[in-house]
């Protein structure tokens, strides 16, 4: 049972979550005075310390769970609390560890931006939301932070809101995430209505409701019958829908490339390392909910996403777009990892990917920063993000080159890097899993292998174009040359480059079996029957293919051996990102706009017409009333007045002022009264 007392690890985790929130509030309160970002950086640094302490205390031990009563609806009590298990503290530490270099990097990268005070506030808010998400102990609380993450991301994507593209991008991201959020909400509702609790540990823990073998019926909350497997499949799909939108899985991936409109530091933190990881984390949390069928759906979706995104990345020219598709592709890998039941490997890949993808973005940011600088200095009409305009930067920006090379090698899974450990582990386990499967799904590991070749190709293409190729004519002609990024940006990059190498995860760079991270989470999972040969064969083959691809890219892009056919259907399909955006435009956006136009017309002509008719009738009625009021009611009142006036006018003639006349009048009146009295008596 969860206890109610705060122990030190809990206190540390709580402060790790709340410090960025305090930073956010303080930044908002300070307003434009908080331009330097000290508040945010201090908050995230303290948060990192607290997270590190919590991690050291909790990792490898039993989960700690604390909760307090929050509110009660009818008979149902809802709680708010923290659940610190291995996955939670790992994510807690990871988010802080990624966020701190990004904060430090932003210090130089965002320098001089007129809205920078907003930037720091949003960044703190985002960190708060993400940290809250990972330690939340129940699905409702998780959902709240989930929404906050989406909202903070909306703010950051649209940070340069005066740009049309940024405004569209954040709208797109928000709307697509709403679709997923509804899935998440429906999933929560289904779980709650059938089981009656939202507590993560009670639901998905080792002794939890869903700990029974997948596919079996679960006893229902009200004790009447059982929750059927079909109901669970639908609930699982609802959760998966939420994760799909947040983690940019095909076909909901379209928001992520557009989200590159935000500052590059934001892209590296949110759209590479943390927010998109929330979907994977959610699936890892609710993993016991999924039955066989659902896992197959997840694995298939992940594989399709990985393949499609890698394919789109091949022909992009925008450096950030390439990295965005690379992110989607790697997220597809993680989803496949969850789909084959190896969620610890998915989490491991999430961690390694967070480091090297964050680094890739930061390095890209440094390059863009430099290109922008040159563009402004020399008045060049170039797109600073277009890789065709770059080239030969290897000598100009050696440190950036070195860090980006390390990150790229980690991405392709080259030996000695962290990516090698996680990616090959994933591939090997995919093969082991496929050995037990029949039918088309057994092709999944082969597709993933192809994807990893594509990955090598597009990332080496990026490196070749940016660092090795001859400098673009427009730059070479003017004698323009780039310089290395400032130190404040290089230090975080070097730090992340170190984190992308193997020593952080294991002492044996060639064997993923000894990674402490996997050992920490995997204990709870059933293992697949190992195929010894694969553990040897897959890494060797992968490495050899990578080297071959590198040679091909070298010959293609630097030596110029193979002319590029840019008119082929496959090329165009890739360049236009599979026409998915166009498809959405035709299938959803345009009908919606048409419907809106129709509704507008209806509103304008029918609803407004009715209202205007009523208004006209009211006015007419009011006109009649006015006439009656003016001529009849007022007439009657005026008539009374006129009568009184006339009577007064007549009677005033009696007031002659002649005393004797008055006296005579009085006399005659008295006489009349007397006569009346006399004759009345008679």
């Amino acid at each position, binding site marked *: 049972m969860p206890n109610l007392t705060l122990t030190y690890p809990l206190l540390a985790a709580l402060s790790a979550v709340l410090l960025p929130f305090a930073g956010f509030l303080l930044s908002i309160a300070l307003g434009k005075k908080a331009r330097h970002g000290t508040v945010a950086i201090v908050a995230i640094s303290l948060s990192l310390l607290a997270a590190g302490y919590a991690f050291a205390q909790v990792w490898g031990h039993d989960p700690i769970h604390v909760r307090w009563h929050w509110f009660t609806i009818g008979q149902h009590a809802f709680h708010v609390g923290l659940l610190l298990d291995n996955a939670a503290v790992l994510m807690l530490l990871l988010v802080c560890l990624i966020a701190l270099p990004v904060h430090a990097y932003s210090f130089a990268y965002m320098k001089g931006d007129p809205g920078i005070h907003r930037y720091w506030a949003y960044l703190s808010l985002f960190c708060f939301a993400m940290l809250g998400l990972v330690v939340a102990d129940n699905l409702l609380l998780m959902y709240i932070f989930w929404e906050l993450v989406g909202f903070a991301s909306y703010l950051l994507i649209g940070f340069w809101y005066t740009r049309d593209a940024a405004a569209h991008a954040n709208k797109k991201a928000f709307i697509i995430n709403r679709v997923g959020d509804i899935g998440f909400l429906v999933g929560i509702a289904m779980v709650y209505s059938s089981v009656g609790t939202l507590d993560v540990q009670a639901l998905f823990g080792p002794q939890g409701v869903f700990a029974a073998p997948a596919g079996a019926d679960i006893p229902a909350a009200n004790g009447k019958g059982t929750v059927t497997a079909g109901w669970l499949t639908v609930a699982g799909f609802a959760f998966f829908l939420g994760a799909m939108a947040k983690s940019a899985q095909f076909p909901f991936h379209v928001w992520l490339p557009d989200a590159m409109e935000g500052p590059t530091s934001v892209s590296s933190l949110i759209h590479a390392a943390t927010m998109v990881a929330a979907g994977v984390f959610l699936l890892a949390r609710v993993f016991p909910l999924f039955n066989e069928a659902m896992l197959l759906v997840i694995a298939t979706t992940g594989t399709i996403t990985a393949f499609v995104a890698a394919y789109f990345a091949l022909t992009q020219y925008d450096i950030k777009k390439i990295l965005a598709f690379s992110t989607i592709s790697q997220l597809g890998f993680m989803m496949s990892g969850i789909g084959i039941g190896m969620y610890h490997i998915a989490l491991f890949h999430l961690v390694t990917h967070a480091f090297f993808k964050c680094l890739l973005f930061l390095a890209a940011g440094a390059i863009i920063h430099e290109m922008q600088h040159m563009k402004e200095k020399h008045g060049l009409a170039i797109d600073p993000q277009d890789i065709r305009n770059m080239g030969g930067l290897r000598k100009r920006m050696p440190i950036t080159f070195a860090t980006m090379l390390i990150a790229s090698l980690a991405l392709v899974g080259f030996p000695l890097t962290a990516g090698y450990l996680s990616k090959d582990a994933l591939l090997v386990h995919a093969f082991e899993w496929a050995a037990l499967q029949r039918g088309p799904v057994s092709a999944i590991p082969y597709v993933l292998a192809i994807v990893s070749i594509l990955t090598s190709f597009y990332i080496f293409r990026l490196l070749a174009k940016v660092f090795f190729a001859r400098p673009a004519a427009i730059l070479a002609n003017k004698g323009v040359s780039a310089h290395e990024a400032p130190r404040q940006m290089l230090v975080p990059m070097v730090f992340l480059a170190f984190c992308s190498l193997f020593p952080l995860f294991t002492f044996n760079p060639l064997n993923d079996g000894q990674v402490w991270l996997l050992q920490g989470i995997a204990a709870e999972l059933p293992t697949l029957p190992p195929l010894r040969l694969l553990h040897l064969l897959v890494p060797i083959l992968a490495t050899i293919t990578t080297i071959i691809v590198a040679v091909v890219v070298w010959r293609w892009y630097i030596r110029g051996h193979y002319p590029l056919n840019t008119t082929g259907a496959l090329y165009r399909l890739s360049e236009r990102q599979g026409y998915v955006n166009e498809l959405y435009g035709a299938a959803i956006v345009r009908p919606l706009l048409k419907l809106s136009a129709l509704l507008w017309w209806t509103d304008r002509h029918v609803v407004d017409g009715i209202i205007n008719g009523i208004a006209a009738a009211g006015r007419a009625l009011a006109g009649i009333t006015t006439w009656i009021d003016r001529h009849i009611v007022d007439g009657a009142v005026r008539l009374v007045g006129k009568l009184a006036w006339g009577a007064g006018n007549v009677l*005033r003639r009696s*007031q*002659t*002022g*002649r005393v004797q006349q008055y*006296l005579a009048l009085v006399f005659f009146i008295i006489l009349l009264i007397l006569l009346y009295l006399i004759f009345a008596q008679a």
Partner: protein
Amino acid sequence: MITLTHFLVVGACLFSIGLYAVLARRNAILVLVGIELMINAAIVNLVAFSRYDKAFYGGQVFALFAIVLAAAAVAVALAIILNVYKFYKSVNPEDIRNLKD
């Protein structure tokens, strides 16, 4: 035999003459005289009715009071007329019309 009716007729005649003077004369002094005549008509009536009060002669006593009061009233009225004359340079009631609306 002089009866009560004779007295009352004399009183009525006096009253009518006085009333006529009050209503018709163009001189405030003569209006005052008319008033005196009306008072005296009343006094005649009082004296005439006093024969029915053999014990106290209340009517006659009251007549004496009325005569005294009438004399006092005449004094006051003459003073008013004198002031009116000073103000309006006229004693004709027709000329004094400040009460007109």
